[in-house]
């Protein structure tokens, strides 16, 4: 667009100005010519009046057009539209000053009597300013592209973060607060994308900040839980519990049940070997360690089957009742009450079972299996069978992976 308009600007070359002076000076001045010739005819002029009339004549000559500043003005508009004030404030200010100076110089020249007008130095300056302006446009285009790229990169990071949090909140059933914050964050990301598409970078930047704040809130509600599954000491403790349970069962020549909450797997061991493996459902807040009644968490620890409920005796097909709470659970419950972690009125839970009803269920804290798998387990488990429930047996678990992903995303910022 600027190039096309530039052609109009280039028509005002010094050559054209000269031609205009020579050929147009005598056009349309019949009135003055007639007036002067009449005066010369009837009143022979004195030297003074001759000079006076020559002066008037040349002053009234058709004026060469002043140099056009249209192209520079268009450049100025492009710079303004491209936020030059923000990217290159000093350079843009200088450019505008130069533009104003040029215009003032043109005005000055135009105010002179035409024989004394000289636009040539101005034309040269206009050329220089045009070049400078075009250079500035390139600079702001580059800066703007860099900014756009940076915003797009930030947006991609935020989208990744939102995706990770989305998966994690669904996996650990983080609750409606985390989901609400995640939704608000996702909306802000979408708005930022719209702003970016419309080249409204400042607006996009603001939305990104809003989205970051919301996603951080959502993140805060999942991080503590993820940290448990990335805690080396805790995982080592869980691994030891699993090892000890299997070893003890081997010695006693009995079966042992191991529940891995991170993998959502229940394994039946016999003679130290894994006999069967089933996918399971756990409590709504199952990735947490059960602390009190109604927290919908699945307990972690070493238990035993204390009762078997066959078909018709359980609401969920068949069930193996565990001796939850054990001594350690009671101790933790009292400690939590004492430290104010839970309400003074809270009660310790109970009735934790391994039951049927389907692996996709979210339970109140129990462990659920598909009914036909429960049948198989029920057959092989006896009252007294050891049941050890752990969070994970390796740092390579999905929740720990989620934390790593979030950290990676944070580092990319």
């Amino acid at each position, binding site marked *: 667009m600027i190039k096309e308009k530039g052609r109009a600007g280039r028509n005002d070359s010094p050559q054209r100005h000269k031609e205009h002076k020579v050929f147009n000076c005598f056009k349309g001045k019949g009135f003055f010519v007639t*007036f002067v010739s*009449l*005066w010369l005819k*009837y*009143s022979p002029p004195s030297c003074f009046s001759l000079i006076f009339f020559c002066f008037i004549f040349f*002053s009234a000559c058709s004026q060469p057009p002043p140099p056009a500043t249209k192209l520079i*003005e268009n450049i100025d*508009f492009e710079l303004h*539209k491209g936020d030059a004030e923000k990217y290159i404030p000093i350079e843009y200010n200088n450019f505008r000053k130069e533009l104003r100076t040029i*215009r*003032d110089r*043109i*005005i*000055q020249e*135009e*105010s*002179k*009597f035409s024989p004394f007008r000289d636009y040539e130095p101005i034309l040269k300056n206009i050329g220089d300013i045009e070049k400078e302006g075009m250079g500035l446009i390139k600079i702001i285009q580059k800066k703007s592209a860099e900014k756009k790229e940076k915003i797009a990169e930030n947006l991609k990071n935020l989208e990744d973060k939102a995706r990770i949090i989305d998966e994690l*909140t*669904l996996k650990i*059933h*983080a*609750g*409606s*607060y*985390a*989901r*609400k*914050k*995640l*939704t*608000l964050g*996702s*909306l802000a990301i*979408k*708005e930022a994308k*719209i*702003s970016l598409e*419309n080249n*409204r970078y400042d*607006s996009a930047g603001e939305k990104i900040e809003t989205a970051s704040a919301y996603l951080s809130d959502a993140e805060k509600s999942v991080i503590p839980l993820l940290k448990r599954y990335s805690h080396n000491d805790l995982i080592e403790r869980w691994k030891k519990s699993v090892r000890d349970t299997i070893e003890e069962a081997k010695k006693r020549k009995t079966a042992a049940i191991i529940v891995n909450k991170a993998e959502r797997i229940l394994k039946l061991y016999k003679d130290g070997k894994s006999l069967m493996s089933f996918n399971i459902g756990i409590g*709504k807040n199952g990735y947490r360690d059960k602390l009190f009644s109604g927290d919908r968490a699945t307990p972690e620890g070493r238990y035993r089957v204390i009762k078997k409920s066959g078909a018709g005796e359980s609401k969920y097909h068949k069930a193996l009742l565990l001796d939850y709470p054990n001594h350690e659970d009671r101790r933790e419950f009292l400690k939590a009450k004492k430290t104010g972690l839970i309400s003074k009125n809270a009660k310790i839970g109970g009735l934790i079972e391994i039951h049927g*009803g*389907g692996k*996709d*269920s*979210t*339970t109140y804290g129990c462990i659920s299996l598909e009914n036909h798998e429960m049948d198989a387990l029920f057959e092989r488990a006896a009252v007294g069978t050891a049941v050890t429930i752990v969070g994970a047996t390796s740092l390579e678990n999905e929740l720990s992976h989620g934390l790593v992903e979030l950290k990676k995303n944070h580092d990319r910022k």
Partner: protein
Amino acid sequence: MNKTIKIFAGSFLVVFFFIAGCAKPPTEDIDAAKSSVEAAKLAGAEKYLMDNAKKVNGELSAAMDEVKVQDGKFPLFRKYDKAKEMLASVKGNAERLKADTAVKKEEVKKNAVAAMDEAKGAVGSAKAMLEKAPQGKETKADIEAMTGDIKGLEDSLPDVQKAIDGENYDDAAGKSKSIKEKADAVSSQVQQAIEKIEAAKKAKAEKGKKKGKK
């Protein structure tokens, strides 16, 4: 005769210079043109019709330059006719720009309000679908998650109204679009969940029938 012509010429020059010397800067025209341009700007011309606003600004600058050219001339040769013409044109164009801006602004506002209504509708229907969704052990957690999603959408709806009230129509439209997209996504998730449960129920019923036959 000779004397008559001399008197005539002399009188002509006196009258000519007198008239020429009488030319005064068109202050009123300048003020009128400037206030029209300012009124167009206040109406939001630079935001809604940027190119047109730039054109009118350029015309005003050119007219002001013409006034300055004449101001800089020897008083006897000042002529403001061209400047007056230019200023009148600026005034007319600025008034037209103001009117066009009002039309454009109204159009943008209308679009923003329509987008907000669509967003509200989409959130409403997602909420209604979620309320109808079967509540069971299998769906409870998902429903809770989606309830949180909808709560987030509902919480962001007043921001759209705020943006409209603040005349940030682009922002309002962007927010509405995002809300609608998310609400539609929730609706489709709810629909999928309902279908999944119905399919599971159907499969269970068929299994029961087969067992019965055995």
